[in-house]
């Protein structure tokens, strides 16, 4: 109820008109139209992809620079802070649902489509007439053995190491947060760089693992439904870790520039939330993709 009383005295914050959203849209369309043309071999070349990509990154930077200026200029009220908290929460929820689509595909392939192709239940005829001799199992690249025979990556090797790295990074970013709240900035920055290092080493090991899969195990994106789900899930996760690491570096640099206050630092917390989300997705991946 105290928040309601406070709301009476505060005025609303409405940002000034901005050209960034429009330019960002134009840049994104340039980028994806370039990629689409590339996929259809339209001989447009990489120029639109390059222009769109660089422009998108530049505009995102400029847009966030405005936000940082507004924030550091003290223009954000408690209400705006709550807006960012709610907004970030719902954004992460939408990301969870995006990953849900691919986890759903994995579940469907393992529990339904592969057993059905193997003739389970009422699908005897499917197996008998369409795919005779196919026996259901996992991992599988299907009755057509799409992509040729392959080996999988054992869970208790590099993936376990990566699990430990990410869990540790969840610990270090929490330590950094406590340091920030206690106004011990130097300690906070050190914990943040530790977090960045852990994230980067995760990515390094992941890249190494991909290289090994492609060169030695013949496990590729084209290795039937196993390869598809494996690389799409771990790939999108890796993309999020990359993005998360860039975000971590950004807020660490901001800490070094003297941004954030012990009692007001949602930019920091938002990145931390995102990092924990990436962490949790990894745990799910480790269990259902690598281990089980």
């Amino acid at each position, binding site marked *: 109820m105290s928040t309601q009383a406070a709301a009476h005295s505060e005025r609303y914050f409405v940002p000034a008109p901005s050209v960034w959203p*429009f330019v960002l849209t134009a840049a994104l369309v340039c980028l994806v139209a370039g990629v689409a043309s590339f996929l259809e071999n339209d001989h447009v070349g990489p120029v639109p992809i390059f222009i769109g990509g660089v422009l998108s990154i530049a505009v995102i930077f400029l847009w966030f620079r405005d936000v940082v200026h507004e924030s550091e200029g003290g223009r954000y009220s408690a209400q705006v802070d709550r*807006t960012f908290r709610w907004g970030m929460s719902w954004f992460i929820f939408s990301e969870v649902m995006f990953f849900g689509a691919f986890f759903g595909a994995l579940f469907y392939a393992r529990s339904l489509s592969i057993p059905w192709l193997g003739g389970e239940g009422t699908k005897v005829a499917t197996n008998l007439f369409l795919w005779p001799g196919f026996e259901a199992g996992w991992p599988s690249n299907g009755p057509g053995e799409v992509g040729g025979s392959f080996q999988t990556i054992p869970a208790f090797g590099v993936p376990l190491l990566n699990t430990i790295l990410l869990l540790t990074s969840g610990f270090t970013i929490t330590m950094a947060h406590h340091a920030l709240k206690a106004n011990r900035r130097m300690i906070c920055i050190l914990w943040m760089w530790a977090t960045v290092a852990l994230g980067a080493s995760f990515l390094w090991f992941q890249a190494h693992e991909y290289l090994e899969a492609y060169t030695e195990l013949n496990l590729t994106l084209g290795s*039937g439904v196993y390869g598809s789900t494996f690389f799409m899930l771990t790939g999108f996760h890796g993309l999020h870790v990359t993005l998360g690491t860039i975000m971590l570096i950004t807020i660490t640099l901001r800490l070094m520039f003297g941004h954030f206050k012990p009692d007001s630092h949602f930019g920091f917390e938002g990145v931390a939330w995102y990092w924990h989300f990436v962490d949790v997705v990894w745990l799910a991946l480790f269990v259902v993709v690598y281990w089980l």
Partner: protein
Amino acid sequence: MAHTHDDHAHGHDDHAHHGPDKGIMRWIKTTNHKDLGTLYLFFSFTMFFIGGLMSLVIRAELFHPGLQFVEPEFFNQMTTMHALVMIFGGVMPGFVGLANWMVPMMIGCSDLALPRVNNWGFWILPFGFAMMLSTLFMDGGGPAGGWTMYPPLMLQTGNAFPFLIFSIHLLGISSITGAINVVVTILNMRTPGMTLLKMPLFVWAWLITAYLLIAVMPVLAGAVTMLLTDKYFGTSFFNAAGGGDPVLFQHVFWFFGHPEVYILILPAFGVISTIIPTFARKPLFGYDSMVYALASIAFLSFIVWAHHMFTVGMPLAGELFFMFATMLIAVPTGVKVFNWVATMWRGSLTFETPMLFAIAFVFLFTIGGFSGLMLAMTPVDFQYHDTYFVVAHFHYVLVPGAVFSIIAAIYYWIPKWTGRMYNEKAGQWHFWLSAIFINLTFFPQHFVGLAGMQRRVPDYAVQFTDFNEISTIGAFGFFFAQFIFIFNMLACCYGWFGRKQDAPARVWEGAHGLEWTVPSPAPYHTFEEPPPLPESELASIGGGAHAH
């Protein structure tokens, strides 16, 4: 940009002084919910016009059996694009436009919570649709495999394919950002005293719709991403030889697609629940049950998706589960329909244009609901599947349902937006022509569908000719009747009839709500301070139970 911010030590200065920029830059740079609401609505009606032209191509071709105007390939492009344009370009942006205009005014705040993100969400739409519509001019033409994009058929699309996929990704970003904005605004910006169960029902409907959008648009993005990698990167999600299954796409798509159906209709429920009490001059009957019904429908919408797939060869247990779960939706929907009727019961009714459209909504949406109940029954769906009966069903819920409610909402609120009253006589003409022609268009399709006429085919057996001729006449009539509406609304926007159009603050004597406490037209930033919330403004919207 940065230095303008530094000029303002205090956040409240910049909207107190200057109004909007001048010229085109006002619309490109705007962070104002009213400007963006206007842009959304103009965009929506442009898309309704384009999608409407496509439907006229379809209906002209179906006027007679045999092929007369277009090639079958182009016909299929028209059915596919008509659906995509109407759903993602017409109805959804139409409702987002209404949310932009009305949510801040109804809950008593200055603007949406994230105004720059709001601008981004809008501007993605014209770019995204320019890309999608450009596919019609590419080698191999536009996408022709149906808006549901089922593989393996969809994977045969020509150059259009990646453009379609990426435009859907972009539209998804637009929907998600727009929805996050609405949820955050509603949860965080309500004026003191407006508890959740005192919110206007339009706001409630949009809160739940926005939640559905955030939950399912990413799933659609995942589904089309898998399509893209299956076509270009050798994955086997939908390829049985690799252990995948084309039916998997249908599951993922409809996990998005069924909540999407409610995304298209829940805001309509909110509009109707606002308009009927005003013209019945009675509080809405059963406010709380209306809220619970909305929430129940939203929950159930996640566990009924496979009723779109009864004929695909699912296990029997699946067929039964999805049949019964689907039928359950009739319960909360019935609650809503009965509550609307009960609100009108013994009210002092008047029949201005918004009310006419609202009553037509209740009646015609219910017809669509009943045909939906028929389709929900697995055994009979084997007969109805992919026939014109399905076409008739979803057009009854979408045109005299969703579209009528958008029209009703615009008639209802445009005097508040522009400060000018629309022409009532022309509104009545528009209503009666629309209501007659829309039934002429879609009612006969029930009959030809039950008799076995297939959808998405440019030709049909001769015995269906009479009904198809009626349907085509209805479609052309409905299309041209809308120009009365467009003219009427533009007359409000631009004040073509001078001062005699001026509207008072409380445009409708029976209307309650914060939006009627401000002048017409509403100020550029409606509330500079959180407004007080008088009980009288809650009387009809917050429910009689809360009034005393």
